[in-house]
C-alpha cells in the first residue's frame, strides 16, 4: 500500500530538507516519489511538520533497576483512567505498556535504555518485549567487574577486554557499552566513599582515568558504532565541572559519549558553594569534536533517581525525597534507586534546571548535543514537550526565570541568552544526531529506504509544548499508530542490537572465570531465544565499516 503524506513542512536534516513537500512510504519503508502511480492513501498534512520518528538515546525505561523503582514507589504511579479497548494496561502508571504508548504519542519511535547489567539482560529483554509500538535497545554496563579490572591491572593485551566486550554484547544482545563511575563502583565495595578521575581503585592500582581510557579504546576496537557511553565520576557534586573538563582532556581524541552532563555542570561559587558552570563546560564541548553529550535536563517534578553509580546513590540516601532507597551491590556493577523531588523554590534544583538549559543553548552543534532528561533522573520523559518549548522560546524561559529564587537568577547566564532552537535544530538533535551516534542506517531520516517511522505534528507556534505532546499522526513501520495524539491499538516494535566479530576463544576463559569466582555457569546469564516471547523480533545494527 502506497501512502502519501502530502503538503506538510518536511524537516529532515539528514537530507538537508526543510520545506513543504510530500513523503511517500510503502511496505514499511520510505520510498521516492513513484512515477505514474497514485497513492492508495493520501493524508493531507498541510499545516503540519513532518519528521522521522524521534530517537531517545538515553532513557531508563526497562530492567531490574527501573522495576525496583516501580516497586519502591507504589504511591508515585497511581492510574486514574480506564484503558481503552485493545490497549491492555496502557493507562497503568509507569508500566511497560504505558511507556510505549506515551512515547509513541509524542512521535518517538526508538528508545534506548542505558543501564542494564549483563546479569540482568534477560530481565531487560522481557520488559522491552512488553513495551508496545516503539523499537528499543539497551546499553550494557561494564568496567567495574573484576575481569576487566584484573585484565587492566595485569597489563594484558587490549584484545582481551575487546573480546570480552564482543562476547558480552553477543550474550546480552545489547547495542552498546556504558561505563559508570569507572572503578568507583568497585571501590565503594571497599568502603571508598568519594572517587575522582585520578583516584586509585584499591587492590587494582588503577585510576578511573586509566580504566575509562582503556574501555574507550576497547569499545572503539570492537567496531561497534556507539562509542563508550561514560557516566563520569563525582555526579551531582559542587565543583564537578573540573572532573568533566579533565575527562574531556583525557579522551584521547577518540569518540566518547558523556551521559547526562547537566549533572556535571556545577561550580562552587556563591554563598551556597554551588553554581552553574555550564558556560565553561559548553565551551569545552564546542571545542572537542570527538565528544558527544546528552544533557539530562532537570524539570521541577517528583522523580526517582536510578543509577548504576552505587557510591553516588548511597551518598544520596540522606537527601532522598521521600527518604528511602534501594542500594544493590552486584557482581561488578550494581544499582541504586533513590526518590527525589526537584522544587522550583530549592536553590540547588533551580541551579540545576538553569544549568541544563544553558548547556543546550550555549553548545553550538545539535549533532553532538542530545536531548534527554535522563528519564526519570532529571525529569520524566513526559516533560519533553515542555523542554522543547523552553528551548524554542526565550520568552517562555523568561517567564520561568521570574519564578526562580533571585539568588539563582544572579548565578546563571540564562537571562542573557536569547537563542531559540529552530524546528530544524530540534529535528537534528532528536533524529539526525541519534542516527549518527548509534550508527543507524535505517532511521532518523526520511530518505528513501528508511523505515517508515514518521511523526507528524500540527504546527502550533504559540504552544510548542502542545504541538510535541500530541502528534497528529505517527506511523511506525508505515502503520498508522497514533492519530490526534491517541494510540488506538498496539503494534510490536523490534529490539535493536549489535554483534561485532570477536575472538571466540575468550568464551572459554570467561566460563572458567565465572565458575571460579562465582561458582556459576556463565551460560545462565546468556539470553537464549527459548527464554524470550516468540513475538520478540530482533534487528541487528551494523558495525562501522
Amino acid at each position, binding site marked *: 500500500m502506497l501512502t502519501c503524506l502530502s503538503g506538510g513542512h518536511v524537516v529532515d536534516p539528514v537530507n538537508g530538507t526543510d520545506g513543504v513537500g510530500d513523503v511517500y512510504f510503502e511496505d514499511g519503508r520510505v520510498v521516492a516519489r513513484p512515477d505514474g502511480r497514485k497513492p492508495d492513501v493520501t493524508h493531507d498534512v498541510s499545516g503540519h511538520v513532518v519528521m522521522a520518528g524521534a530517537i531517545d538515546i538515553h532513557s531508563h525505561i526497562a530492567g531490574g533497576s527501573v522495576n525496583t523503582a516501580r516497586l519502591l514507589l507504589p504511591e508515585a504511579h497511581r492510574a486514574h483512567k480506564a484503558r481503552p479497548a485493545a490497549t491492555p494496561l496502557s493507562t497503568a502508571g509507569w508500566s511497560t505498556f504505558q511507556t510505549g504508548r506515551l512515547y509513541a504519542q509524542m512521535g518517538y519511535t526508538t528508545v534506548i535504555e542505558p543501564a542494564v547489567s549483563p546479569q540482568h539482560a534477560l530481565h531487560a529483554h522481557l520488559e522491552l518485549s*512488553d513495551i508496545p509500538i516503539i523499537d528499543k535497545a539497551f546499553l550494557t554496563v561494564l568496567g567495574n567487574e573484576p575481569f576487566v579490572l584484573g585484565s587492566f591491572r595485569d597489563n594484558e593485551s587490549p584484545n582481551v577486554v575487546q573480546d570480552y566486550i564482543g562476547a558480552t554484547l553477543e550474550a546480552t544482545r545489547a547495542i552498546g557499552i556504558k561505563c559508570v563511575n569507572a572503578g568507583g563502583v568497585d571501590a565503594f565495595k571497599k568502603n571508598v566513599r568519594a572517587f575522582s578521575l585520578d583516584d586509585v581503585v584499591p587492590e587494582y592500582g588503577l585510576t578511573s582515568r586509566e580504566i575509562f581510557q582503556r574501555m574507550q579504546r576497547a569499545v572503539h576496537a570492537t567496531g561497534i558504532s556507539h562509542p563508550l557511553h561514560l557516566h563520569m565520576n563525582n555526579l551531582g557534586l559542587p565543583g564537578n565541572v573540573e572532573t568533566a573538563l579533565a575527562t574531556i582532556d583525557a579522551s584521547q581524541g577518540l569518540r566518547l559519549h558523556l551521559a547526562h552532563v547537566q549533572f556535571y555542570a556545577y561550580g562552587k561559587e556563591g554563598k551556597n558553594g554551588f553554581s552553574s558552570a555550564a558556560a565553561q563546560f559548553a565551551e569545552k564541548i564546542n571545542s572537542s569534536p570527538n565528544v558527544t553529550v546528552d544533557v539530562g535536563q532537570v524539570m521541577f517534578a517528583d522523580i526517582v533517581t536510578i543509577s548504576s553509580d552505587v557510591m553516588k546513590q548511597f551518598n544520596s540516601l540522606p537527601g532522598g525525597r521521600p527518604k528511602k532507597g534501594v542500594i544493590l551491590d552486584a557482581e561488578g556493577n550494581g544499582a541504586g534507586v533513590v526518590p527525589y523531588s526537584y522544587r522550583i523554590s530549592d536553590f540547588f534544583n533551580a541551579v540545576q534546571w538553569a544549568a541544563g538549559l544553558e548547556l543546550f543553548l550555549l553548545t553550538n552543534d545539535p549533532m553532538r548535543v542530545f536531548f534527554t532528561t535522563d528519564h526519570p533522573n532529571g525529569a520524566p520523559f513526559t516533560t519533553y514537550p515542555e523542554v522543547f518549548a523552553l528551548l524554542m522560546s526565550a520568552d517562555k524561559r523568561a517567564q520561568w526565570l521570574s519564578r526562580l529564587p533571585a539568588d539563582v537568577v544572579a548565578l546563571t547566564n540564562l537571562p542573557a541568552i536569547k537563542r531559540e532552537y529552530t524546528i530544524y535544530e530540534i529535528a537534528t538533535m532528536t533524529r539526525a544526531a541519534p542516527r549518527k551516534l548509534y550508527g543507524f542506517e535505517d532511521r532518523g531520516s526520511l530518505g528513501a529506504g528508511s523505515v517508515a517511522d514518521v511523526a507528524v505534528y500540527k504546527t502550533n507556534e504559540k504552544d510548542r509544548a502542545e504541538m510535541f505532546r500530541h502528534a497528529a499522526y505517527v506511523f511506525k513501520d508505515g502503520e498508522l499508530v497514533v492519530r490526534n495524539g491517541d494510540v488506538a491499538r498496539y503494534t510490536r516494535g523490534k529490539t535493536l542490537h549489535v554483534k561485532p566479530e570477536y575472538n571466540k576463544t575468550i568464551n572459554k576463559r570467561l566460563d572458567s572465570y565465572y565458575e571460579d569466582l562465582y561458582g556459576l555457569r556463565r551460560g545462565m546469564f546468556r539470553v537464549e531465544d527459548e527464554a524470550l516471547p516468540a513475538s520478540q523480533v530482533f534487528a541487528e545494527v551494523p558495525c562501522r565499516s
Partner: protein
Amino acid sequence: MSKATLDGAPIAIEDAYQHAAKILGGAKFPVVAGLATDAAGARAAILLAERLRGAYDHLASDQIFNDLDVTRSFGMFITTPAEARARADVVLLVGPGLTEHWPALFERLALGEPARFNDAAPRKILWLGPKRNEAKVEGVEIETIAATPQALPGLLLAIRARVGGRPITLNGAAAKKIDAYAATLKAARFGAVVWSASAIDGLTVEALQGLVTDLNANTRFTGVPIGARGGASGVVQVGGWMTGFPPRTGFGRGYPEHDPWRFDARRLVDSGEADAALWISAHGGEAPAWTRDDVPLITLAPAGAGAARGLYIEVGRPGETHDAVELAQETSSFVLRRATAPSEAPSVAEVIHAISARFSEDVPC
C-alpha cells in the same frame, strides 16, 4: 495428553477450557490467585485478570510483603548471592529454617571457604536464632545465638545499639555475646546478612535492615534475601513492569489499583466479593487458603495435585516438564530453566491462552 476433571470426574480437555472460559468470562469480579508459576505464566495470568477486570494475588503474598513493606517504607541494602560468595567476609544468618527455604544456601555462598577479596581472610559466620541443630554444618564454624523468632527484633535492636555504642538492658553472658556480635559486624569489610521472609516477620526484616543501615555508616554491609516459595520473586517482578504493582492488585475500575488488604484472594473469596477463582499452583500443587467452597473454582496444578472440587486442569511443572523463565535464587536474576523431564503437560501460559481464546464475544479484549 493433558488431563482435566470436574468435581473429580474426568472431562475432555476441550470441554474443560470451554467451561473455564464460561466461569471466568461470566464472573463480575474473578480473582486469579496462587500464581505460583513462571514468568510467562504470571504474564498471562495478569493479562487475564486485567481483561476480566478482576484481581491477582500470590500464595506467598504474606511473605512477599514482609520484605516489600520494609523496602517501600525504608528501603533496603541488597546484594546477589554471587557477590556475597565472592566478597562477604562476615555473614550474619538471621532466623530459623534458612536451609529449608534455600537448601543450596551454604554451598552457594561457599560459607566454608574464605571470601575472594579482602585478602582472603577466613569468613566469619554468625547465626542468630537458628533452629535446634540447624547451625551444625560440617566444615563451617558458626557463632550462634539461640533465639525464638519473637525475640529476634529485640536482639537485632540490641546489636544495633551496641554497634552504635549505646547501652542495652541485657547483662551477663547474653550482653557479652551481643557485644561480640556487634564487634564482629563492625569489623566486617563487606558483610552480608541472610534472611528469609518466610521464616521471620516484617518487624524482624525492618530491624535487620536498620542494623545494616547503621553498619554502612562506617563500613560496607548488605543483605541477601531468600525469596518466598512458588516463584514469588519472579511474579513480583512481572507484576512490577506490567502494572507497576506486586500481587494484591485489582482492575475493577479498568486500571490497576494495589491494596494488600482489599485484594487478598483469601479475603476476596471468603467475603464473597470474588465470584470466581482461578487458582494456579504449578510447582507443588498447594491448595488455596480460603475456607469458602461455594465460589466457582478452577485449579491449574501439576499431575497428582488434582482438585476434588470444581474444575481441574493439569499443567506442567516450570523448568521440569517444560522450559521456563524464572527468577533464580542463586543469581537473583531471571534465567532460563530448561526442562529436566519434558512432558506434554501444557504450561500455565498455554492453558490461560487456551481459555482466553474461548471467551464469548462480550468479554472485551
